[in-house]
């Protein structure tokens, strides 16, 4: 194989099939040649760069199911933007009190904010309004889940190594921004559940030593509850954060395009040679299909499973409360930390550090800081600073995978603790007992699982280092 051959793209398929495809297209349109030809010519005449486009038509994407996880996230983002535009046409970001006059009798006469009123109106009195709202919310839940699975995949396959360290940083930043945007999004309807969450967010902010009360007052616009809070969250949720996400996402995809996607080890693959599916037509078809499938699954769930029924929760009033008060699942780990941490206030002279500061501010910092530093921590551990385009299989490096398993276990226990009262009531357990069990598990389980994973993989380390089909 000469270099020249590789550069053009070696076709593994017999030429005749390709020929048939072109002929078939021509026949389908009833012309001898495809109408794509004048289109391509028009593009080059008015834009230029036909050589570049020619190459990129056959841009190679390595194949594995694990490489679709980022696509789930990307397509959820597209769905969120599309449905979000619809929602924004109805939502009123105002806390001005209005008396409900819609069709839902149990709220008649109740005083609520214009924001809550607009969301109830959209849900119950606008055709397809509830569907779009539910697609939006389901897509948000799946979005963050896909991001986390995608991040786990990056870690256990060591995709963050040179030259993809910066792209990895962009990715972790995206997780943070998306989580924040989700929190703001479900707080917009100003219902009892999300308003309670905002109250807790205020308490967490003011718990920070020295700057806490001032910072909370600045961010929220005064002492909670403030009358402009929803109006302040709104532009952040529909513009500021989505713009930042879109920008970072563009950079993320751009870098991915330029550097090409990593690949699993296999026959004919190396750090220099990439093997996979060409962009046109196979990959483009597949990925477009996947976009529609992601949309279809979100729509199916939105059609048949109710999510966030704000008319049942009622409008937020600071003296109303509901049990089973949790944030959306991706904030569950933070909620769990807050519930598990005992009431250890620290009083030093006149200075009080409230107990909630540690689980709600310090622990998230301890979770995210190492995440950002992973590429350099990896270098410290392995002293491997070389360029890599081939991934590691999870079993090839048992220590890394065991660490990931332990970390995921830690976060999972926190997640379960975040909903411990709901599990208790659903299964008839004693809530304090269950919480106590989780408090022990958080220390015992992660190291156990990590050790178990390590032992399991070390024994099979050799078997994993084979070609992946």
């Amino acid at each position, binding site marked *: 194989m000469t270099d020249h051959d590789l550069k053009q793209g070696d076709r593994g398929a017999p030429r005749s099939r390709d020929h048939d495809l072109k002929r078939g297209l021509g026949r389908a349109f009833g012309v001898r040649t495809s109408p794509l030809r004048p289109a391509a010519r028009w593009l080059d005449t008015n834009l230029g760069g036909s050589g570049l486009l020619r190459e990129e038509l056959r841009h190679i994407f390595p194949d594995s199911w694990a490489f679709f996880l980022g696509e789930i996230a990307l397509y959820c983002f597209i769905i969120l933007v599309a449905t979000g535009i619809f929602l924004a046409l109805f939502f009123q970001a105002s806390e001005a009190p209005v008396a409900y006059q819609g069709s839902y009798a149990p709220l008649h006469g109740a005083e609520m904010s214009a924001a809550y009123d607009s969301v109830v109106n959209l849900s119950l009195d606008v055709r397809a309004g509830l569907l779009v709202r539910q697609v939006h919310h389901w897509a948000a839940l799946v979005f963050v889940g896909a991001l986390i699975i995608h991040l786990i995949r990056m870690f256990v396959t060591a995709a963050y190594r040179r030259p993809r360290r910066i792209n990895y940083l962009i990715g972790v930043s995206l997780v943070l921004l998306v989580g924040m945007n989700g929190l703001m999004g479900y707080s917009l309807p100003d219902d009892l559940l999300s308003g309670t969450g905002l109250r807790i967010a205020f308490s967490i902010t003011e718990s920070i030593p020295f700057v806490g009360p001032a910072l909370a007052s600045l961010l929220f616009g005064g002492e909670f509850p403030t009358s402009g809070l929803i109006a302040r969250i709104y532009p952040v949720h529909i513009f500021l954060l989505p713009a930042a996400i879109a920008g970072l996402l563009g950079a993320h995809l751009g870098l991915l395009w330029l550097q090409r996607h990593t690949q699993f080890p296999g026959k004919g693959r190396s750090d220099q040679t990439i093997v996979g599916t060409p962009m046109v037509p196979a990959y483009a078809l597949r990925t477009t299909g996947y976009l529609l499938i992601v949309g279809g699954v979100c729509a199916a769930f939105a059609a048949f499973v109710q999510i966030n029924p704000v008319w049942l929760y009622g409008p937020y009033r600071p003296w109303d409360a509901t049990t089973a008060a949790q*944030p959306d699942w991706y904030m569950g780990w933070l909620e769990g930390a807050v519930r598990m941490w005992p009431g250890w206030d620290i009083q030093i002279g006149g200075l009080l550090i409230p107990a909630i500061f540690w689980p709600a501010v310090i622990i998230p910092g301890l979770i995210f800081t190492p995440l950002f530093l992973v590429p350099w921590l990896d270098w410290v551990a392995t002293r491997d600073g070389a360029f890599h385009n081939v991934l590691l299989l999870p079993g090839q490096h048992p220590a890394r995978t065991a660490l990931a398993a332990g970390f995921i276990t830690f976060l999972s226990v926190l997640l379960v603790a975040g909903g411990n009262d*709901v599990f208790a009531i659903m299964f008839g357990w004693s809530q304090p007992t269950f919480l106590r069990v989780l408090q022990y598990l958080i220390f015992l389980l992660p190291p156990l699982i990590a050790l178990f994973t390590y032992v399991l993989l070390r024994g099979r380390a050799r078997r994993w280092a084979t070609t992946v089909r």
Partner: protein
Amino acid sequence: MSRPLVQPRVWGSRSAVPALSRGLLAALLALVVLSAAFAAPAFASTAASPAPPLQPTPAGVASPAGSGSFTPAATPEPLPTSTSPPGSGARVYAENCAGCHGARGEGYVGPPLAPAGFASLVAPMVTQGGINMPPFAGVLSDQDVSAVAEYVSQELADPAARTAQVGPGGDLYRLYCAGCHSATGSGGAMAKGRNAPNIRQYPPAEALAAMILGRGNMPAFAGNTFDVRQQTAVALYVQVLSPQPPSPGGAGIAYFGPVPEGAVGGIALLLLILVAVWLAWRSRGAAA
């Protein structure tokens, strides 16, 4: 209550009648209404007039829940000679209650009875009395009390007034009840291993009894926190939530909020990952 409370708006019902005809029709209708308004007093003054339609006095309905104040009706309705069989609720009512509450429960010295939705709330009121109401414990037998309670809650109660109570009932529910029983009535875990039950599973009478008397870990709300009107309002709201809260969005998944919703979201993600596995599968290995 089987009557659905969520009524989707009818959309886009444009009349086929052309505009000019519509205008003429409207004018005709206005003429009829105006003449009726002028002629009405003539009808009202005849001796053989039918009973006026059951309308709660504006003061009675608008007065805030929890207050004992009300404005009595302008003129009392004359007591009808009761032709109901002795011992029936109607007879008991006519002989003991109509003097204060009006012949049709529209209110006079006593408040209007239109919002009285539940026999199990009326009965204790009758036996124990209220703020200005004497107790009838020694006067009426238990049979009479339950008969008149049934009569009041079935015959005299006005569905419109009851529906008007549901909103305030919801407000009270979220202030006092949702903290233990959750906003959807699914129940919740409290401290010391105690759990507040799912209140949607109980028939209204039992839920009311628990609210009035207190039960288990639940404090008594009657006489302490809620007066009869408030108890009715809360009970009516709980009825709205039972057996399942209004769920136009689909399956409710246990009505416990974001926890089960997150679990279901995980199923959606899993589904998509399985699709990805299917998508990326190759019948032949990667060739070079």
